[in-house]
């Protein structure tokens, strides 16, 4: 199948700004699904609110566009009630880790078989460029005219600590790598997290003088390095890319099946 077979083409061109990385994440995600040969009827995409969340309207899966920050909670209900379904939950950084931070760590703790894709553009785009918990200090935003003083989360470390059993990071520049990580994440039995650095040239890029979309991608190329690489060893200030966690642990729905078995015996 072609990638367009997974799209609701009637809604294209999409609503994202020119050069927005979210389109590339959608692109990579569809290729991963295509390569895995998944059945469209078997996929539920759940999203929250924000630029990122509009992704669920564009895919020809069961799509659940919910409320801000709660996509993982909705997805947990879908998954536990029908564990045969594949749950894909793309979220923005604010959606996933500010308002939705609690659901994120608890979904990870349960190790429920859901794939969380965090499209990290380090800003609230839909509302016009306010800083997010991923912006980090010293950044300009409409709510930080004198620069941010908030420290940022490290999504990989947060996901690891919370108990996610698959954790990876890539960027929209590294599309092939993203596809590879997404494939592995979707295939993984348990809670998987893929952070994809995704440029927002309209707000973040413009306010922080990072240039247009190609320049921001250039930065992703220059400022990141694969884990285990010489480049990263030489310059630890680079952002690490790669698969950070890939372990087996009991999955929540499977564990619950055992509860049902025990309850039925007693």
């Amino acid at each position: 199948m072609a990638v367009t077979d997974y799209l609701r083409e009637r809604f294209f061109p999409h609503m994202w700004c020119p050069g927005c990385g979210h389109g590339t994440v959608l692109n990579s995600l569809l290729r991963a699904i295509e390569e895995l040969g998944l059945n469209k009827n078997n996929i539920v995409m759940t999203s929250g609110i924000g630029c990122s969340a509009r992704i669920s309207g564009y895919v020809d899966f069961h799509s659940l566009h919910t409320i801000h920050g709660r996509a993982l909670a909705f997805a947990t209900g879908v998954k536990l009630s029908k564990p045969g379904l594949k749950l894909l939950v793309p979220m923005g950084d604010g959606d996933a880790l500010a308002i939705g931070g609690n659901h994120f760590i608890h979904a990870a703790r349960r190790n429920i078989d859901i794939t969380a894709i965090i499209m990290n553009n380090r800003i609230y785009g839909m509302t016009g460029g306010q800083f997010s918990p991923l912006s980090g200090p010293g950044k300009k935003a409409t709510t930080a005219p004198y620069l941010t003083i908030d420290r940022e989360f490290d999504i990989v470390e947060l996901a690891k600590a919370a108990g996610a059993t698959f954790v990876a990071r890539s960027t929209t520049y590294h599309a092939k790598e993203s596809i590879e990580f997404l494939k592995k994440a979707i295939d993984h039995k348990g809670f998987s997290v893929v952070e994809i650095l995704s440029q927002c040239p309209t707000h973040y890029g413009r306010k922080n003088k990072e240039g247009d979309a190609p320049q921001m991608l250039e930065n992703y190329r220059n400022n990141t390095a694969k884990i285990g690489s010489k480049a990263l060893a030489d310059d630890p200030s680079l952002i690490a890319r790669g698969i950070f966690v890939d372990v087996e642990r009991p999955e929540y729905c499977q564990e619950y099946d055992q509860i049902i078995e025990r309850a039925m015996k007693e």
Partner: protein
Amino acid sequence: MTKQIMFLQGNEACVEGALYAGVEFFAGYPITPSTEIAEQLSGRLPERGGKFIQMEDEIASMCAIIGASLTGKKVMTATSGPGFSLKQEAIGYACMAEIPCVIANVQRGGPSTGNPTHVSQGDINQARWGTHGDHNIIALTASNHQDVFSITVDAFNMAETYRTPVILLLDEAVGHLREKLILPEKGELPIVDRLRTSVPKGVDYHPYLPREDGRLPMSDFGGDHRYNVTGLFHDMWGFPSNNPKVVNELLRHLVDKIDNNIRAITRYKEHYMEGAEYILLSYGSSARSAIHLAQNRRAKGEKIGVLELQSIWPFPSELVREKCAGAKAVLVVEMNMGQVMAQVKMAVDEPGKIFLANRIDGKLITPSDIKQLLRVIQGRGV
């Protein structure tokens, strides 16, 4: 066959009703005084292959049951005061996306933390107006365990019939009181199951296009019809729309689908109402005291009756007007500052004869509390 008789809490009667109605999925978070509902279902659901999950918070619980409902399951959550506040945004989502679900709110004192272990009926208005935007909602209540059981079954049935969240407004006194429940046999009470679309695979399915009878057949997630569910204004396919005609029709539908069925939704009971000159209009645990008083006064020859509402929203205005028309005075007996009384005053022709008999101090309103006020109204002194 002899019927099974149980001695249990109101919260447990609610659980029995939910199981009878076919609940398959529960998500919740511990909160007094509703916790027993979660505790009971954590054991009872898996016994029959159902699922229970304790979520990280109240909001997540509400979201999880909405997700589960979309896979075709009958779903429920239970909460109290502060938890009910937290759930409001997701309840609004379920209204907008028309997702069947039942929310039991075992009311306690408020606002804020109030008093978790004391009784109140202060969430009447929140059940109706808690979420933003125009919509309609169904809220049911009951005063004894037999009725808690059957009204819980009704709640599930109405959620399915009207594709809407239904709120069960229980209260601490009923929830924690222990009394008898005679368990209805299978088939004794009607059960409404999920109406699924008959549109075959490959044919365009409209999840938000009502049939002639107003019902909207659903398609389970994982089935052949891949559609969109959103809290945005949406068209009949569930896709976002800004078309004024589409938006107008959607919002009117959300209100009308319940208003137009108010007769079918209305639940009430009459106690000693024959020729009643004074009517005690009440609901939930307050109604127990009202009934007790009416029973005693009737025995003494006073014409006092009780109109017990079991459906609060949509407010049964016509019923109330009709039943209260001949009364000398109507005392609305409730444990809040007159939330139902305000509705009654709007419903009747002579609002001047409507009085409030209330208690808001965390104590159950007693028959003598009501009697004192009644004596004043009757002109018999304090």
